[in-house]
Every structure is written in structure tokens, then in C-alpha cells.
């Protein structure tokens, strides 16, 4: 929050309080509002069976969104999420070819392949100074080409072990949720509690200052794209297990949805501030929203419109100009005596 608009400790104005809320809690509030709306208009979407159907997809989205969040936090954006998810899914199925004994090897191969893609992204963005959107878009095209070449149009099935693991539950909770929780927790703890995490945040906030402070910015950025690729690869493997036979378009839905989850979760598109937990909560929010839209019988185009609107609203809230306009608007609406913005 700019110092010019810092309020005094007592009697903070409404907008400032809203500003504070948007920093961390907006997605939680949005989720609660959505649950209330569902309870009022489509209570069937809150049934246990409905939630259990929604959670695995939310979990897979959350894993991928963690990766996207790391990249966006560094001021980038990663369009190779589609290709990475698809490639890891088809490799984990294709290499194991139904042989459970080869599953571990297949997982390593799948993750190795997407890590190379992440490395390419990182090198392209840092050393070659290619804009992230272009670099990752090109890598995505290469990855999809690799998918076509690898599968030759004939996708294979996941091994029985992987499939059963992805579908099964422990203590009534799908395994996919546990995996997502591990990814989110590790990312959140590393970012908040470790030196590496703090440096990572510093680089995202101001790479020039970080460089001047002696941090190896390029190394961190390349590592970011590789870690993101690792998340996409893991999401692809879990997805492959869940759908059993992932096709060559299995990763398509994860481009807009991961970006939406990250932005709605409170991460600024311009980098700096990252909210890994927020992105995961946003993944649940978006999945439940989709269930709600389906239940209302609205056409599928509504889902895309709502996602776009969610991005617009989230960006609007995180934009200082937009927030400033809102503050001025709210300030105008409040009694003069209560507006106590210090200068």
C-alpha cells in the first residue's frame, strides 16, 4: 500500500480494509460466497458425491497452478503448461506400456522430459532475453510436436497401479488431494521460511535490485521455470492415472485455468507478490464454480466468460490504479470525517 494513503491505526477507512483483505483473503471470501450461492441456488453441488467428483480435478489444477504461480511471481508467464502436462501424461503411459514394473522409470522419464522443457524456457527467457510469452509459447508448440511424434496418434493406457492410486481415497479423501496438498505446502513453506524462498521473492519483486545485491538472478529464474515444469509434469502424471488413457489434447484445459487460478488466488500478474496457497484455493473455487455453472444448465460458454471475468476482477483488485480509483470512489461515498488518509 502506498505510504501516501496509509491510514492511521484507528478507524481505518473501508477501502483500506478492503485493500488489506484483497492481499490475502479475497479468494477465501470468494469461496465462502460461492458456497453460500451454491447452497441457495444449487444445493446439489455441495453433496458429498458432488464434492468428491470435483476435488480430483481441483487438485490436479492446483498442482499445475503452483508451477504457474512460481513463474508469474517472477514476472513471467508460462504457456508451455499445456504441452508439459500432455507430454508427461503420454510418456508415463507410453513408456510403462501397462507394465507396473516400469512405472517408476516412466515417471522419471516423464519428469525428465518436462524438466528439459523448463530448462529451455529458462534459458530462452534469461540468457536469450526472449519475452516469456513468446518463449513458452514456442516451447509449447515443440512439446506438442513431441507428443505427436511420441504417440504417433495412438495414446497408451496408464498402468493399473497408477490408475488405481489416482482414483482411490484414503480416509475418504482422494489421493490426488494429498498430492496437491504436498506440493502446495512445500512451495508455501520454502517460499516463506527459507533463505532460498526469501531470495526468490526478492528477485520477483525487483530483479535489478536483487542483482545489485549480489543474487544470481538468472540462476533463480531458470530454476523457476524448471520447478514449474516439474509441477506440470506431476500434474500430467496424476491426470494420466485419473483418466487412464490420456489423449493428445489432455492438457488443453490447463492454460487459461492455471493462469486464472494464480491471478484469482492473489498473485500479481506483474510479479513480486506470490500466493501459492491462494492459487490452490482458487483452483477449488474455479472447479466448484464450474460444477455450479453445469448444475444451472447454463451453456459451457458461460464457464469461459466467468473465468475471464474472474481474471478481470482479480487484476482490477490488484492493480494499483484500479484500486486507487476504487479508493477514491469509496472515499467519496464515506462521511468526510471518517476519511483519514494521511499524507
Amino acid at each position, binding site marked *: 500500500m502506498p505510504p501516501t494513503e496509509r491510514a492511521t491505526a484507528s478507524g481505518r477507512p473501508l477501502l483500506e480494509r478492503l485493500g488489506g483483505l484483497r492481499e490475502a483473503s479475497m479468494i477465501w471470501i470468494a469461496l465462502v460466497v460461492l458456497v453460500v450461492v451454491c447452497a441457495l441456488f444449487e444445493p446439489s453441488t455441495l453433496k458429498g458425491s458432488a464434492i468428491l467428483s470435483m476435488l480430483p480435478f481441483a487438485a490436479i489444477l492446483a498442482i499445475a497452478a503452483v508451477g504457474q504461480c512460481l513463474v508469474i511471481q517472477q514476472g513471467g508467464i508460462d504457456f508451455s503448461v499445456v504441452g508439459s502436462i500432455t507430454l508427461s501424461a503420454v510418456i508415463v503411459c507410453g513408456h510403462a506400456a501397462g507394465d507396473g514394473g516400469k512405472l517408476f522409470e516412466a515417471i522419471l522419464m516423464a519428469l525428465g522430459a518436462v524438466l528439459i522443457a523448463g530448462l529451455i524456457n529458462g534459458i530462452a527467457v534469461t540468457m536469450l532475453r526472449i519475452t516469456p510469452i513468446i518463449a513458452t509459447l514456442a516451447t509449447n508448440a515443440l512439446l506438442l510436436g*513431441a507428443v505427436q511424434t511420441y504417440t504417433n496418434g495412438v495414446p497408451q493406457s496408464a498402468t493399473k497401479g497408477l490408475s488405481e492410486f489416482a482414483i482411490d481415497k484414503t480416509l475418504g479423501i482422494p489421493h490426488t488431494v494429498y498430492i496437491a496438498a504436498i506440493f502446495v505446502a512445500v512451495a508455501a513453506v520454502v517460499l516463506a521460511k527459507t533463505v532460498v524462498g526469501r531470495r526468490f521473492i526478492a528477485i520477483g519483486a525487483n530483479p535489478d535490485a536483487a542483482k545489485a545485491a549480489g543474487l544470481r538472478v538468472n540462476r533463480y529464474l531458470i530454476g523457476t521455470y524448471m520447478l514449474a515444469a516439474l509441477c506440470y509434469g506431476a500434474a500430467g502424471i496424476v491426470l494420466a492415472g485419473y483418466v487412464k488413457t490420456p489423449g493428445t489434447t489432455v492438457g488443453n484445459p490447463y492454460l487459461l485455468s492455471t493462469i486464472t487460478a494464480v491471478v484469482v488466488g492473489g498473485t500479481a500478474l506483474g510479479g513480486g507478490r506470490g500466493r501459492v496457497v491462494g492459487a490452490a484455493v482458487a483452483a477449488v473455487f474455479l472447479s466448484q464454480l464450474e460444477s455450479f455453472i453445469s448444475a444451472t444448465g447454463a451453456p459451457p460458454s458461460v464457464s469461459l466468460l466467468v473465468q475471464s471475468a474472474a481474471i478481470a476482477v482479480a487484476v482490477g483488485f490488484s492493480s494499483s490504479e484500479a484500486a486507487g480509483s476504487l479508493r477514491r470512489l469509496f472515499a467519496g461515498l464515506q462521511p468526510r470525517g471518517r476519511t483519514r488518509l494521511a499524507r
Partner: protein
Amino acid sequence: MNIPGSSALRRILILCLCLALGVGIAACGGGSSSTSGGSTASEEPAEETGTETPPAETESEGESESEGETETASAEGEYGQLEIGELNFDMSKYCGEKPTVVGAIDGFGGNTWRVETRALVEKTAKECPNVTEVKYFDANLDPEKFNSTISAWAAQGVNIIVAFDDFGQSAVPAFKAAQLAGVKVVTDNAIPGNAQIPGDVTAAVIPDFEKGGKEWVEFLNEATKEKGQIALIGGPAGNQFDTPSQEAMEKAIEETGAGVEFVESEPVVANWELAKTQQATAALLNKYPDLNGVVLTAMFAAPAVNRAFEAAGKPLPAIAGQSSSNEVICEIHEKQQKEPNYNVFSLDGSAQQAALALAKGMAAYQEIEAPELGPTDEPTKANYKVYIDTLKDMLPPCEKSLPGGADLSTALTKSEIEEVVK
């Protein structure tokens, strides 16, 4: 981020990266484009878009290792009880004598069904010794590539184009231009927009929606004991299969007085995707707890439907549809062990439409009268055959050695399928 280094260095790095990536992709390629003897194939991997895919997608799920599967078919061509693995016409009658170049083009060729269908077209073309070349192109969901390839083939002297028009009306101008250039354009499976026949295209082979709809209604009526609460779960909004199918079924319900009722007046959009199908089914179940029948215009999604019903703790529904796959068959074997009343009905043999389209194109190009292949002034309605009907104990064996997405109802032998999907 400014780093020291000249632009020349950057160029060298870019070059090295491209080279490394190219080598890597080539090395990791598990498969490669295949051609039938003497034919050429040109495929361009391209970026995928979110456009419509056909119901014959075989991104099927299921388990090739499923329990309870039956013995695999031992002899070639033993698929199904209706000898569905054979063509019902003799291609050699339409070969003529003029040297012919055939082009087969898919709007999207990235699934097992398309791979097998392409192989069937090539096999059928081989029956004519005067077919000198069979070209193939996968537009990979890019309508511009689709149209430009048709135009290019017309200029290159291709005589017959067999097209799976994934793009509807947008491909018709290209078809029309090719026809004006003397090419015989024939389409299969999908309706080519508002194309005039003959004129814009020489022939169009499409599913017989009315016959299929009637058979689905009869099955669902019996499987649900005349108390069917059903929904059609299909592909993207506005696709060319779902609405005609539901309309045909509604007409059949009205005519026969069947005790089957659609819970939704429109087909449910699920993009022919497994994940979407499961989510759509779960949403339907929440809204209509009595749902007990499902119609799928792409049967490969049946396991996703089953999973949604299982998650809701409900008995599996009766499922009617078309274009099954090996994995669907394996799953039926597995599920029936736990739920003997689980019933499925599938119309198959859709790949044969492409072979029939080729025969019609060949007859037209060679100027051979072939009324037995269907009309020449309107779409030819393909006769799908009943391939799975568990109420009548019709269920092909689960093929452990083949991929889950394999279409066992195609007019290819087992060894031919194994060859094209390996």
C-alpha cells in the same frame, strides 16, 4: 535483465537450442508416420487448438489389465458377432483403369480411431493396382491447413480426396474449388456443412441418425424396464452429431411410445473429453438423482460415466452409443462381474464409412455406375451395425495385446491393427 553478450552469441545459442531440441524430439519419438506401400504420407505436428473433435475420438479409458476379461480372439478378423470386420462391397469392381492418386485428409488425426481409419483407406486403395499413390495429411485441428492442403492437392494432380471434415461449413469452399479442378471429393462420418451433392462434393457418407436413434431407444427402453430417465452426453456445443442424435431419439420415443424420457431437452456438452464427461455426469446426477440411462455419441467416454455413478453410490446406468473401443469392452467385462445388470449397447463399424467414401469417389472418377454404393445426389447413410448389446449377450472379447483406444470393429485384421497401433 541485461546480461553481457553480443547478439551473435545469442543467435548461436538459439541455433544450438533449436538443434538440440530437434534431435531430442527425433530421438524420443516412439512412433513415426507410416505409409502403405508406395504411398506417401505428410504430417505436420502443429499446435493444438480448442476446436471441435469428432465423436470417433478414441482417447478412451479403461484397463487393458482389467480383471474378468475374456480370452482374446485368436484368429484374424474375429471381431464381433456380425462379421463387422469386413467391408460389404468389393472394391475391385470400382478400380477402373485410369491411374489414380488418392489423398486422405483428417481435420484431426491424433487418435487411435483415425490411425486405424487411415490404414483402412490405404488398405482399400491398395486393392486397385492403378492407384499409384495415397497421400495423407493430418490438419491437427487447423482449418486453414485443412483447406490449403486440399487446394494444394488439387493443384498437384490428386484425383480423389477422402476427407473427414471436422470443420463443417468452413471447408466447403475448398471442397468446391477442388471439385471444379476435377478432383472427386468425398467425405465420411461428418456432415460437410451445407455442401451440395453432387457439386460441392461428389459424395458424403454420414451416420444414419434415425436408425441409430431408434435402436438406442429400443435398447434403453428394455434396459431400464420402460422407466428410463436418460441424457445424451456428447461433444462440443453445436457439433454435428449430438443434436441430430437426440432429435432422432425423441422422434423414436414419440413414435414407439417408449417409456424413456430425456431429462435435458438439449444434449449435454462434454467436449468428448473424459474429464468433462465425468464432471457433466456428476452434475446431472446431482440434479436428476433418478438418471438411469446415458447416451454417448463417443462410447470411449463410458468409463467416465461409470466413475461418476460409482462416486455417487448409484448403480451403473444403461449406456447406449456409438464408436466403442477396446477399453470400453474390457471395462464392460470387468463391471459386469460386479453388476450383472450393467447393460451397454453400441453401434460400430464407423471406420468403414471412409472405405465406402473412397469406393464412391473411385467409381465416380472412373465413371463406373455404382448404385449399390448408395445415392449420388444426397448423403449416403451408413449402416452402423450392432457391435455390443449386453441384453443379447453380444460382447466382443477384451484384447489385452492391443491399446485401449483400438477400434476392434474396423475392417482390419488383428495383425493389421497391431501393425498400425504399435
